[in-house]
């Protein structure tokens, strides 16, 4: 993207990006920082993906072929930590950095130096996390949920795990503060809150969720740290502590975290579907209320991850009811997207294909979510491959597809060039097919009784496991095509993009030239009724 953004510099600019490495190390520009977030996210996605491929290769057939069980546990743990904190969250922060100033008519983010810091913490946090593979005792192997007492059996990696989680939390909190301050203070003068585009809205809600729950996670892992090194017994039964307490605290963070990973995705497809349906988003305000109620409900459902720990009956009933309620606002969002498509004039460019796939496949993840809310059935599903299928259906063809849709959608605006549409479509179809080949059979495995997080399995699980492994390899390799398409586009191999890029899209970002100028809006733009979303 370097050359592209530089190209945008015309003589009237008072200053442009610095030269060489200083441009990135000292970056305060929202586009540069957004680019770095996205590149980091891509690197982490490929790293976590490589781990997934080792996992799936080991599971291709029963018996151990490549790796010892303890290494397997390290890989599942690190795969999850890297994908959640390294691939999905930074990608959405990167998109927020790039797009929020352009969508609200601001020149940049409100707090550029904090922005720089919140990015540059991340590479070090992940270096430290990945370095634990080479420490005595290996990488953390207790699952990304870090349940004690098991996590306290981690070797030398333990304090590094805790510290890197702290750093990731600090980075997320700073990113969230920056986004909130930018959205609240730097909107174009006549853009009222309810006129904001959905992507900005969902990010505003997400940022508040981050502010609320990242400190909770930090507190929980700090208590693990003091249990391990300072003689406390928060979670140790022998000292009067309670191992289940950690699970409650963790999931009080963990469930809102689920929505931190998906709400920005909802925002992305709320931008894409109207553009390619050539129709305004249906029920903009009710989408805002639905996202807000999802965020609120996410705080009172956490124990649905813990129906087998032995909770009081009334507790289980409460968490069953509250969990099922989430289906209502989520359904509202889905129906509103369909109503947006209804009687539009749809075309199916790559971003739209991804958005439509999300509607189908995220809904399948939603269905298994409703099934998981039914406590007696959940007791069978819990900690089985059914759960693995469920959360991969919401995270891969939900969050990851949305990130890719967003990249295809806005890349011409960022780089000034169109990507290769037929390769983009090929990437979509390969991804959409292989994601189902990978994750659909996992439903059957879980129902048939295969627990999650096991390196080897009984022979009756062999067939579906080998299908899933083949799907995973296919999905993984298809992503290299994505990397190729993006690199070609950024290097300016495609046709020149117009400022609108698509067919008359709505939103302020399309009023800027492509590539967008270094400082997005030097003068606050007028929000005309056509460019606003409501």
């Amino acid at each position, binding site marked *: 993207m370097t050359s592209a953004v530089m190209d945008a510099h015309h003589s009237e600019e008072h200053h442009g990006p610095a030269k060489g490495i200083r441009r990135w190390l000292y970056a305060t520009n929202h586009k540069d920082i957004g680019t770095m977030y996205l590149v980091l996210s891509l690197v982490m996605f490929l790293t976590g993906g490589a781990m997934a491929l080792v996992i799936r290769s080991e599971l291709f057939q029963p*018996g*151990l072929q490549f790796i010892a*069980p303890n290494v397997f546990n390290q890989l599942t743990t690190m795969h999850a930590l890297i994908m959640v904190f390294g691939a999905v969250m930074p990608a959405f922060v990167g998109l927020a950095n790039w797009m929020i100033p352009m969508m609200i008519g601001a020149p940049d983010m409100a707090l550029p130096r904090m922005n720089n810091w919140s990015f540059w913490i991340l590479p070090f946090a992940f270096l430290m996390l990945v370095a634990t593979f080479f420490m005595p005792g290996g990488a953390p192997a207790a699952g990304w949920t870090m349940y004690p007492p098991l996590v306290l059996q981690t070797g030398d990696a333990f304090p590094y795990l805790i510290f890197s989680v702290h750093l990731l939390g600090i980075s997320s909190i700073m990113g969230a503060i920056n986004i909130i301050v930018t959205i609240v203070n730097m909107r174009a003068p006549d853009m009222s809150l309810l006129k904001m585009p959905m992507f900005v809205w969902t990010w505003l809600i997400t940022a508040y969720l981050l502010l609320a729950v990242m400190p909770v996670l930090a507190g929980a892992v700090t208590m693990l740290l003091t249990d391990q090194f300072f003689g406390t017994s928060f979670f140790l039964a022998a000292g009067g502590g309670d191992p289940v307490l950690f699970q409650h605290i963790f999931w009080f963070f963990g469930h809102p975290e689920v929505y931190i990973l998906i709400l920005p995705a909802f925002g992305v497809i709320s931008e894409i579907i109207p553009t390619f349906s050539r129709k305004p988003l249906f029920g903009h305000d009710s989408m805002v209320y639905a996202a807000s109620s999802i965020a609120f409900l996410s705080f009172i459902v956490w124990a649905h991850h813990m129906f087998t720990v*032995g909770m009081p009956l009334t507790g289980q009933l409460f968490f069953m009811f509250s969990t099922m309620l989430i289906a*209502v606002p989520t359904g509202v969002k889905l129906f509103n997207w369909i109503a947006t498509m209804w009687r539009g004039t*749809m075309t199916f460019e790559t971003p739209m294909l991804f958005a439509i796939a999300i509607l189908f496949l995220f809904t399948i993840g939603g269905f298994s979510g409703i099934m998981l809310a039914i406590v007696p059935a959940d007791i069978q599903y819990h900690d089985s491959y059914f759960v693995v299928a469920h959360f991969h259906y919401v995270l891969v063809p939900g969050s990851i597809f949305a990130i890719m849709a967003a990249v295809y959608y806005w890349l011409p605006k960022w780089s000034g060039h169109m990507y290769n549409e037929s390769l983009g479509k090929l990437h979509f179809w390969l991804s959409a097919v292989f994601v189902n080949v990978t994750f659909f059979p996992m439903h059957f495995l879980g129902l048939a009784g295969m627990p999650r997080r096991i390196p080897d399995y009984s022979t009756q699980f062999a067939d579906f496991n080998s299908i899933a492994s083949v799907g995973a390899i296919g999905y993984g390799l298809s992503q290299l095509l994505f990397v190729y398409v993006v690199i070609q586009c950024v290097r300016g191999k495609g046709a020149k993009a117009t400022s609108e890029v698509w067919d008359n899209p709505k939103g302020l970002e399309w009023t800027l030239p492509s590539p967008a100028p270094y400082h997005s809006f030097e003068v606050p733009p007028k929000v005309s009724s056509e460019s606003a979303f409501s």
Partner: protein
Amino acid sequence: MLRKVYLSVIGLLGASNASADWTLNMPRGVTELSAETYALHMQVFYWCCAIGVLVFGVMIYSLIRHRKSPGAEPATFSHSMKAEVIWTTIPIIILLILVVPSARTLIKLEDTRKPDMTIVATAYQWRWHYRYQGQDVAFYSSLARTSGVARRLDSSIDPFTVENYLLDVDNPLVVPVGRKVRLLLTSNDVVHSWWVPELAIKKDAIPGFMNETWFKADVVGTYRGQCAELCGMDHGYMPIVVKVLEPQAYAAWLASRQPTALQSADTN
């Protein structure tokens, strides 16, 4: 090795008669509550299918009908209070229909009163220990030796030749048919979870806690499960086997496990 690859390829082609005992669905199980759980699972599954057919049907119709075609003008509507109210209310009604039977089964599941017998299961990294309350019977239950040898990284034993690979133990838990068995669960080290799908029981074994659950198996047979909560290196290697016997056979087994019986067996 080749055979395994060959089997996997067969599996991929969908002609999965190579290992005939794979299943697609949750087992109906052998207790009253496992049958109820299965029914709930199927009920919510059918609701999801019905909603799926409807919603995906509308979407597919729209994707075909509302493509951009020459001369087509997009509609401009963007609000409808009526539609919003309808698609908020209908899901709530469906959820209410689902929640009532679920709550009913859940209440039964939690009713551990008046058991016919009680067994204390203690989890260790990585095996189970069972103690029959009021009896002088207690024993460890670990992964069977056949699986234990075959599971090694360099074993070169084909898992398909091992009977009940990874799902077999040296000493199974033995219970009588038709009796309410209360299971008290705890752990000696980390959190484990006791799961037998055919009994529809999954309950965590947590250090410092005593969890309880119950089952009443209605059918004589052998039922297999595994530890379900990640518990360290050998989490995948601590299976659970429950043998349900006729009352007389159970009584005979119990007598044979008494310390006096075991002693005389040793001296023989």
